[in-house]
């Protein structure tokens, strides 16, 4: 169960970054940003590193007291970074690997989408249309993402007593995938 998933382009800017809305997102952005240095270090270590030079999965990048950060680099130098909760000891290495594989498959599909320009942020329309979510939503660790015929979107309660909130529409298939990874282990 990931708390934050990020896709970083080869020029080191984020293509897609999403974290559970309960936490301070800034903290995750910073964490992902600092992990980029560790990723570069692992890639450039020639042969003498413990990690297999030819493999795409990089393994645990660095642990903090609350979280663990895992990395994966594709052949096109696109990096996937996943932050998981440290208290979740049930997550094993091969489960993380399979989550990364699924992410890679989804990313490949995004790449082959004719409406996507390589290098753009991954979302269905730039600057995204917004719509009003008519229900007051509890922001909590249990469910912050809801499915609907129009596709899943994350609703955030703007302030107590205010029943409406603005929800951006994001890229469907990729977002669905990431959502499922944040709710449960794949």
């Amino acid at each position, binding site marked *: 169960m990931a708390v934050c998933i990020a896709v970083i382009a*080869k*020029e080191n*800017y984020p293509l897609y970054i999403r974290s559970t809305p309960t936490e301070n997102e*800034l903290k995750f*952005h*910073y964490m992902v940003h600092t992990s980029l240095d560790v990723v570069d270090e692992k890639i450039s270590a020639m042969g003498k590193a413990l990690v297999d030079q030819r493999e795409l999965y990089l393994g645990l990048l660095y642990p903090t007291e609350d979280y663990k950060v895992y990395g994966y680099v*594709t052949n096109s*130098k696109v990096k996937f970074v996943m932050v998981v909760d440290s208290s979740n000891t049930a997550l094993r290495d091969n489960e993380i690997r399979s989550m990364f594989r699924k992410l890679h498959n989804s990313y490949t599909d995004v790449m082959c989408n004719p409406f996507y320009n390589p290098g753009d942020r991954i979302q269905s329309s730039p600057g995204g249309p917004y719509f009003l979510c008519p229900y007051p939503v509890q922001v909590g660790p249990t469910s912050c993402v809801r499915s609907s015929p129009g596709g899943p979107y994350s609703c955030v309660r703007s302030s107590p007593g205010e029943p409406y909130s603005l929800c*951006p529409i994001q890229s469907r298939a990729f977002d669905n995938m990431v959502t499922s990874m944040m709710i449960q282990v794949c």
Partner: protein
Amino acid sequence: MADEALFLLLHNEMVSGVYKSAEQGEVENGRCITKLENMGFRVGQGLIERFTKDTARFKDELDIMKFICKDFWTTVFKKQIDNLRTNHQGIYVLQDNKFRLLTQMSAGKQYLEHASKYLAFTCGLIRGGLSNLGIKSIVTAEVSSMPACKFQGTMQKGVTDTPNKMFQWILCHRNGRLRRLTKPNIILKT
């Protein structure tokens, strides 16, 4: 082997489609060739992403060129490149003695002047594939006698990675407002 003919026929129609819909003067100034090359570029980017999904990481430029000559060419054209030459200073020449897209056209010098149209897409394909693997290049093709042709790729040196674009990370925040991260001390304060 009907599946081999699919891409070939589609490609031929694509070339004639681009030329039919060309506006005044576009044929002469080479805009049509550019359009075909750009099409190939985008296709190459997507294809490479798919093909390198399961392969191991590449060691160096030569490794990438070998991949293009063997696996990539086999998957697209059902055969490998016959000859790869390099001067180890960024110039690679890929020689294909029986290029699939030209075999149906002629077996000698006939239609030589039209060959460039049918090679533009493939040049773009190679360029797009290399670009997605991190190599900026210029790819040209030449034909002396059909169906043999040579693709020459010139790698552009001095492509540096831009430093971490920390200041351009944009936070999508609630209430739909975008906040731009401008200074590092903002992070330290929170």
